[in-house]
């Protein structure tokens, strides 16, 4: 264990540590707390410069109701769900197939194809922007949820394949061999052996993809433009333009928009971190 466990240090160090810990966390989350506090104030309160005091009047219900009643926030949230969920399912499914192939078969171009998936993952979005936008327009999908669903599925498949391949490669070969000897088809091996075994990885991957796609902003700007299809990231930045200096509404809206991935993270922390730190211990 490094650093030395705090229990083995002097009384003074132990006490300082216990004081420093909450102090650091408060400092770390202070910018966020400011937004949270602002979201329950009235505009008069903000203009009076009341920043940390209790709100003069609690506007919790009013502000959050205003966000939903006067704007398309509900629609934006729904759009985000409509876009994110199919991407999550499709990219994980495609990547499980591809990952199985790359992990358990020896064939020509295996390493090159794997490298392509990894490399493609890291390219800047701007190098894809013009052709992808063009293709989307030609397919008649511009400004529809399909524009985002298809692109995100394609892009996230790269990351998912890397992830799945590394997961499946650690599964024992003997299992597959014994099935083959019993005459199982390759497809059967995939559905009966591989799919049940990758289940722990599926959860980790699904929460990661949800977060990545939910938080996308660039493609939401490039591939869609109307309120009917806009996801919540593009929605909130459009609303900022309308709300101008109504910081209480901007704050409340931002918190609503940020909440789904935050809730998902706290609910599925273990899987989330397992997915994110894949490769942090080896390689």
């Amino acid at each position: 264990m490094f650093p030395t466990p705090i229990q083995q240090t002097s009384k003074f160090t132990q006490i300082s540590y216990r004081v420093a810990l909450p102090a650091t966390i408060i400092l770390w989350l202070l910018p966020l707390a400011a937004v949270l506090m602002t979201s329950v104030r009235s505009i008069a309160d903000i203009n009076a410069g009341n920043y940390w005091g209790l709100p003069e009047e609690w506007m919790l219900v009013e502000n959050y109701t205003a966000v939903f009643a006067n704007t398309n926030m509900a629609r934006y949230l729904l759009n985000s769900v409509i876009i994110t969920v199919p991407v999550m399912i499709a990219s994980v499914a495609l990547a499980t197939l591809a990952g199985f192939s790359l992990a358990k078969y020896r064939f020509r171009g295996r390493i090159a194809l794997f490298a392509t998936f990894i490399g493609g993952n890291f390219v800047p979005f701007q190098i894809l922007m013009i052709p992808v936008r063009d293709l989307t327009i030609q397919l008649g999908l511009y400004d529809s949820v399909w524009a985002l669903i298809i692109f995100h599925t394609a892009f996230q498949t790269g990351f998912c394949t890397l992830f799945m391949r590394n997961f499946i490669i650690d599964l024992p070969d003997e299992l597959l061999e014994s099935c083959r000897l019993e005459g199982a088809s390759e497809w059967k091996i995939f559905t009966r052996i591989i799919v049940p075994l990758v289940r722990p990885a599926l959860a980790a991957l699904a929460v990661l993809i949800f977060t990545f796609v939910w938080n996308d902003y660039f493609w939401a700007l490039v591939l869609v433009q109307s309120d009917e299809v806009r996801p919540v990231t593009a929605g909130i930045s459009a609303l900022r333009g309308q709300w101008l200096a109504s910081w209480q509404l901007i704050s409340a809206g931002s918190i609503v928009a940020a909440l789904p991935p935050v809730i998902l993270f706290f609910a599925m922390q273990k899987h989330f971190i397992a997915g994110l730190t894949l490769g942090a211990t080896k390689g």
Partner: protein
Amino acid sequence: MTTQLKTNALSAVAKAQRPTAASRWHTLTPYLFLLPALALFAVYVIAPIFQSIWISFFEWDGIGDKTFIGLGNYAELLEDPQFWTSLWNNVLWLVFFMLAVPIGLGVALFLNQQVLGIRAVKSLFFFPFVISQVIVGVVFSWFYDPSYGLLQRFLGFFGVDPIPILASETLVTYGIIAAGLWPQIAYTMILYLTGLNNLNPDQIEAARMDGAHGWTMLWKVIIPQLRPATFIAMVVTVIGALRSFDLVATMTSGGPWGSSSVLAFFMYEQAIFSYRMGYGAAIATVLFLIMLVYIGFFLWRMLRAERG
């Protein structure tokens, strides 16, 4: 030995035979499993890279005909002060965003204890990472707000006059980078925490026996063992730095007067607002080439680990 010979002979016979339908099917199997993912990835990710590079040799408004102008867009870039500002800001991003790596390590070392409530503290430290950058932009715009912002309160406490960070041409990029560091430190911290959990306790004990502790221990024993975590942390930080679009777009839209623009935002602006697809593609190509250095290095290292 004899069985070895037998199997060799058998496989030689098998090879000599013409491939049966079944064995041909068998060699196709891995490609069939790969096909759906590969087709989609090729159309939406791989091909567009080459198409963009191709478009960068044309003048094109996105609708009408393309006019081939060779390296014309690149020649124009060299003369464009906005390009140099954006490129320089990308360099600043790359340099200062790297602070996320040592700071993340520092935080991870600080939190790597077993005390009551430490799990909650770790989660609270990490969760800014899952918040959209658009929201992080809002949070820090409010934090920097010249009339009400927290930062001004803090400065005021020390008797410093308010500094409108996001309206200052010299400070704006640093202000945005600092906002970007907030979730990025959370990310590198979690990578290091995982690394610290997987340290080899025997080596640490042995080093302790030899009298190593504190900095020597950290530098000579711990950091070398954390190399995989450091590598991933650096990769994701470089990618994050070069992808810095969301924060720039939400916090300043590249302003004031283009002083906080980065290549990613400059490209978007030229292509979408000025309808200069060819010029935009040229900017994207430059950004891609910078990234390619890192992608190449990363792939080289991964493939080497794969073979070794």
